[in-house]
C-alpha cells in the first residue's frame, strides 16, 4: 500500500527468499511462473536478500534502516530483534494489556450463583486510557521443542505481568498482596497488615 502511494519500499528477505514466494506453488501443486498472491502483496516493492547472521549483511540492513522513514519489522524478530513499535512488539503489548487487566481489574464476583458484575462496565478491563507505554526488550533464544526453535509469542506478555505488578507493589510498599486482581482496597489492606507486622 505504501508503494501504491509512491513510497520507495525495500524488503529484506532471508537468503532463501521470503517463504511466501513458494507458498502458492506448494499449496496449489502447480509449477507456475506467476505467484499472484505474492505479486499482489509485494507490488511496487524492491527486495534485497540478506543473511542477517553475518555482520556485513547487518551493516547493509542498518544502513537501509538509517535512511528509511518508516521501518516495519515483522517475521524476523529472532534474527534481527524487533524493536518497540513493530508489529511483533504490538503483539507483546496486547498480552501485557491482558496481564494488566488480570493483575489489577478483572474480578468476577459471584453471590449465590449470581454474577454481580456481568457487564464490561463492572467487570473491568483496561481500555486505551489505562494503558501505560510498553517497551519490549528481546532476549534472543530458541526453544528446542518448537519447530526450528520457534516459540509462541502472543501469550508471553500475559503470563508474568500480574506477578510483576504484585512484585512492584512489594518493592514500593513492602506489602505482599497474594491475591489478584490487586484492587486498591486489597493493596491498602496489605499495607496496613505489613505495617502492623513491623509494629
Amino acid at each position, binding site marked *: 500500500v505504501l508503494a501504491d502511494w509512491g513510497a520507495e519500499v525495500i524488503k529484506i528477505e532471508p537468503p532463501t527468499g521470503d517463504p511466501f514466494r513458494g507458498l502458492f506453488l506448494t499449496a496449489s501443486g502447480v509449477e507456475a511462473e506467476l505467484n499472484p498472491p505474492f505479486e499482489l502483496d509485494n507490488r511496487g516493492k524492491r527486495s534485497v536478500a540478506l543473511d542477517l547472521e553475518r555482520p556485513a549483511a547487518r551493516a547493509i540492513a542498518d544502513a537501509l534502516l538509517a535512511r528509511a522513514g518508516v521501518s516495519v519489522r515483522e517475521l524476523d524478530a529472532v534474527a534481527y530483534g524487533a524493536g518497540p513499535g513493530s508489529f511483533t512488539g504490538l503483539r507483546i503489548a496486547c498480552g501485557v494489556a491482558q496481564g494488566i487487566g488480570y493483575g489489577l*481489574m478483572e*474480578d468476577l*464476583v459471584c453471590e449465590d450463583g449470581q454474577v*454481580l*458484575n456481568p*457487564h464490561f*462496565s*463492572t467487570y*473491568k478491563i*483496561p*481500555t486505551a*486510557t*489505562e494503558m501505560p507505554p510498553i517497551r519490549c526488550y528481546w532476549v534472543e533464544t530458541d526453544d528446542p521443542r518448537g519447530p526450528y526453535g520457534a516459540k509462541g509469542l502472543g501469550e508471553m506478555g500475559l503470563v508474568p505481568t500480574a506477578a510483576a505488578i504484585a512484585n512492584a507493589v512489594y518493592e514500593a510498599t513492602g506489602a505482599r498482596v497474594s491475591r489478584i486482581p490487586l*484492587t*486498591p*482496597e486489597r493493596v*491498602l489492606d496489605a499495607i496496613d497488615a505489613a505495617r502492623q507486622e513491623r509494629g
Partner: protein
Amino acid sequence: VRYLAPTTLSEALDVLADRGDAAKVVAGGQSLLVLLRDRFVDPEVLVGLAEIEPLRALEVNGGARIGAMMTHAQVERDPGMRRGWPLLTAAEAAVSTMQIRNRGTLCGNIAHGFPTADPPAALVACDARVHLASKREGEREVSAEEFFVGMMETVAHADELVTAVSLPPQPAGARWAYLKYAVRPLDFAIVGVAVRLVLAPDGTVADARIGLNGAANRTLRATDAEAVLRGERPSPELLTRAGDAAARQSAPLDDIDGTVDYKRRVIGVYTRRALARALA
C-alpha cells in the same frame, strides 16, 4: 414497547399522567437502555423527549437554566457554563466516555438517581434547583440536595418529568474542585467530591458547600464537614478534620466497589484533597 415522540411538553405530561409507572421517559437513553436490556424495568410505553423543542435550551443569563434534552457534552463545552459554573462543567467532563457524554443528558442523569454518578455532587455544591412538571401538580422545584432520596430514587413522582436544572450565580471569587475516585476514568465514581469554598477577606472560610457521590445510597451534602470549615482559617489540620467529618457522616454501600470501611476512608482522604485543591 411503544415509542411515543410527543412534540409538546403538555402531550408528554398527558402520557405520564395516563400511564404512570408503565411509561418511561427517554432523553439520551444512556441509563434507561441499560435497565431495559437487563429487564430491571418493563415499561409499556417509552416517551421520547427529542421532538420537544423547548427542552433543547441552555440559557445563561446571570443564572443558568439547562433543559432536559441538553447533553453532558453540551453543558461541559458551553463557554457561559464554563465561566460561571466551572465546578459543574468539571463534573460533566468526568462523566464516563465521550460517546456517552454526547448522548446522555444532565437531567436524565439526575432523574436516574444513581448515587455514584458525577454531576449530582456538583449540583449540590452549586446550590442547583431541579424543575419538575406534571399534569396533576403543575410545576414545582426542589433543591438538588432534597431531590436525591435513595438508590435510583428521587422526589419525582411517576407522572412527573424533570424539565430543567437551574443554577444561581456563584459567589464572587468562589473556589472549587471536583475530585473523582474510580478504577478507570470512564467508570462510575467510587467516591466523587465536589467542593465550593468562599474565603472572607481575612482568609477564613466564609462559606463551604460540599457534595459527595458514593458516600451513601444517594448524593449527600457533607454538612458536618462544612460546619468544621466555616469561620476557620484553612490549615492542613483543619482540612483533615473536615475530611474525617465527611467520612463519619457518610453511609457508603457495601458492594463490588469496596467495603464500607474502605469507602469511608477514601471519602475522608478525597474530601481533604478536594479542599486542598480548591484552596491551591
